[in-house]
């Protein structure tokens, strides 16, 4: 028996509701975040990730309240991301009951923020979220770049190099999303997942593109991810967490049942 690969349902939260868009468009309402988190907890999810996709202050206050409610009812690790820009933002989320925060855009614009946050709160609660997109052309050596603003703005940063740097700065975990795959249901980008997982010594969460249970298996086996994150396959009841775990276990992957 060894450390289990983690299955992490991800809840995109806007104005206190879980939504799920396809490549950031076509948002469908999927329900109340606390109720959904409780359902996943009962089903045996290993962690929950909340991504706050609202930009307004009112939205942020709603999010803090949602995290508080969730943390008094669900006793598995909770990661909160979206709009985390200052140590005060982190303190607020941790005080509300989050166990980890995920830093994305702010890390790109101010890498020192990651160092400061890790020193202040410990690496164990600092997740750096990376949105990567393949930029190499066919026939070239594979190369991925970091994008911000929901995959719209290129930064010129190489994804593998960037993840190494973020770990050096104190990131305790990398949440890697393929912008090419997010919302497509075509599976993870296994190339970038494996490249980053082999490049860093901290756990890597694969995200973006899960459409079926084979994708979860491939993320762990070929992508060498330590955890797999998915949203719509769980929200819309295409698969349950126990089904996903049973499927992974049949294929030789260590999971928590």
């Amino acid at each position, binding site marked *: *028996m*060894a*450390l*289990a*690969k*983690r299955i992490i349902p991800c809840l995109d939260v806007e104005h206190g509701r879980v939504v799920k868009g396809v490549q950031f468009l076509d948002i469908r309402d999927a329900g109340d975040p606390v109720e959904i988190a409780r359902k996943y*907890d009962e089903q*045996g999810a*290993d962690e929950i990730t909340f991504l706050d996709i609202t930009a307004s202050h009112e939205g942020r206050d709603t999010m803090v309240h949602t995290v508080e409610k969730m*943390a*008094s*009812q669900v*006793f*598995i*690790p909770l990661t909160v991301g979206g709009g985390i820009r200052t140590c005060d933002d982190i303190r607020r989320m*941790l*005080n*509300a*009951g*989050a*166990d980890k925060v995920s830093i994305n855009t702010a890390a790109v614009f101010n890498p020192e923020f990651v160092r400061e946050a890790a020193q202040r*709160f*410990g*690496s*164990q*609660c600092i997740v750096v979220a990376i949105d990567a997109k393949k930029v190499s052309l066919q026939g070239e050596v594979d190369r991925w770049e970091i994008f911000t603003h929901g995959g719209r703005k290129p930064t010129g940063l190489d994804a593998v190099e960037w993840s190494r740097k973020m770990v050096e700065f104190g990131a*305790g*975990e990398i949440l890697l999303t393929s912008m090419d795959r997010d919302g497509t249901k075509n599976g993870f980008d296994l190339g970038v997942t494996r490249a980053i997982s082999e490049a860093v*010594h*901290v*756990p890597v969460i694969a995200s973006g593109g899960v459409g079926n249970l084979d994708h979860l298996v491939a993320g762990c086996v070929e992508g060498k991810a*330590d*955890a797999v994150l998915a949203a719509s396959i769980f929200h819309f009841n295409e698969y349950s967490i126990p089904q996903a775990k049973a499927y992974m276990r049949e294929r030789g992957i260590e999971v*928590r049942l």
Partner: protein
Amino acid sequence: MSSIAVIDYGMGNLHSVAKALEFVQPGVEVRVTADPELIRSADRVLLPGVGAIRDCMAEIRRLGVDSEVAEAIASGKPFLGICVGYQALMQHSEENGGVDCLGQFDGQVRFFGDSLKDSAGEKLKVPHMGWNCVEQTGDHPLWAEIDNGSRFYFVHSYHVQLGQRDQVAATCEYGTAFDVALQHKNVFATQFHPEKSQKAGLQLLKNFLNWDGSL
């Protein structure tokens, strides 16, 4: 109704553990505090902790929590340490270039290392983060109704090796075998986070709230 002091020395997420205690025993008085009077008068004491040991130890000493911990342990009342709150009870930690800890127990806190491998030779990530199997060494009241080998949630880069084998309440395997729970008289401590370990973790907290500190 019984009371429990969760020692607040400014490190980590005390909300989770306080909420979990209230959840398993509604009505329990949870005092998140560093006030010596509130700690002394509580029926039970819990020392939590996340983050780097140097900062934790510095705050523990600055706030005088070291003497509160020593007094609580000596008093015989049920005492629970979690994560860094477990490591802090040892003699010394390798973290941050070497830090002296509280020395309440004979044990060392060691780094997992950069070249940790599993039995198949695959490289293992550090921190050890996620759900791993906890092998109990015997029948302690805190293991009541928890299956041996149950998975608990861990997140740490340093692990404890206890000097007295009879004080080992559980072990775990991650590239190396290490001691993930301590038992000694009225003291129990865990490397994993019961407050984040769903059913098994909540059961352990419930057992702690029902424990009188004897074996």
